[in-house]
């Protein structure tokens, strides 16, 4: 969402800059009775020929309303935090993606486990790592141990429950 916002802001800024400059130029040339770079006769005819009750107007207005609602919901819902607080006292935070990658590497290093993915969320002041991996279901305890060890190495606080979901490896047909 953060990257999408950044890109959207860049597009909005460019549109404002280019659109504003063109509007200013066009209006200034009109004031001076000079030939203008944009021919606005088509727009003028379209706006003069469209009534408020036309389906086009309703479609555009409904689209704007829905787009606005979608953007509003996207902005107001809770975002996944970029970093996780490791300690209340010394202001130490760990970058969430880095922690997830490290935990995934630790889980993948367990024998019999392949392709581990880890997501870390904060619930009620505690970290909740969620591990998804392909491998032997008997390796659950070892994965939990590996994740605990890695979190300890990263000086992270003791996590709450570690949620491990192991999918058995698909056998070749």
């Amino acid at each position, binding site marked *: 969402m953060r990257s999408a*916002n950044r890109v*959207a*802001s*860049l597009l*909005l*800024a*460019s549109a*404002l*800059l*280019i*659109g*504003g*400059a*063109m*509007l*200013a*130029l*066009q*209006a*200034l040339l*009109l*004031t001076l009775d000079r030939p203008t770079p944009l021919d606005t006769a088509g727009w003028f005819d379209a*706006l*003069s*020929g*469209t*009534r*408020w*009750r036309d389906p086009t*107007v*309703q479609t*555009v*207005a*409904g*689209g*704007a*309303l*829905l*787009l*606005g*609602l979608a*953007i*509003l919901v*996207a*902005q107001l819902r809770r975002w996944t935090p970029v*970093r996780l607080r*490791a300690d209340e006292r*010394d*202001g*130490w*935070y*760990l*970058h969430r993606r*880095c*922690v997830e990658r*490290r935990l995934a*590497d630790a889980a993948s290093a367990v024998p019999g486990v392949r392709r581990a993915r880890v997501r870390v969320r904060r619930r009620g002041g505690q970290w909740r790592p969620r591990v998804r991996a392909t491998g032997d279901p008997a390796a659950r305890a070892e994965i939990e141990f590996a994740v605990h060890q890695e979190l300890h*190495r*990263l*000086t992270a606080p003791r996590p709450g429950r570690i949620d491990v979901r192991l999918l058995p490896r698909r056998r070749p047909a």
Partner: protein
Amino acid sequence: MTNAGHRLLWTIVALLLIAVGAAALAASLGALPGADPAAVLLSADLVDRWRMAAPWSTLAAAVAGALFALAGQRLLVREARGPGGTLRGTLSHPGRRPGRTRLAADVLADALVRDLTGNPGVRRARVVLTGPPPHPDLWIRVDLTADAPAAGVREHVRAAVRRFAATTDCQPAHLDVTARIEPSRP
């Protein structure tokens, strides 16, 4: 611009879109008092009034366009500059005897970066000082190598901040350290 700034900007844009969309939809459905759904979007009366007001109407449009362009340019500049509010300039301390000690803020930040990167576990460090000079807010980002002992680096950062506070006589009001750790596998 910060993430919070973007969030605020797009919340305002969303509210504007909702307001405009809802008003146009209400006018189109005849639910807006005073608006006739059978009327054209650009009525002849409006066009006449625009023409009568020339050249002031076109001049007003030119000014509005210039303001839009200026807003876009400011937004682009802020986008390119990144999060603002960095403390630039000098920290000034009155001495016990006549005289003052002055220190450039970016020199202090560079000194702390050098101190932080003195530990082999710290690959890169970035320091930003914000807030009022006697008790600035200290924002640190450290990139740690894959094999760095996190506890040792944490202690090193804490010691570096203590040294910074002692040297500059500036006890940070707020300390914020974000650590990024490289993946253990290449």
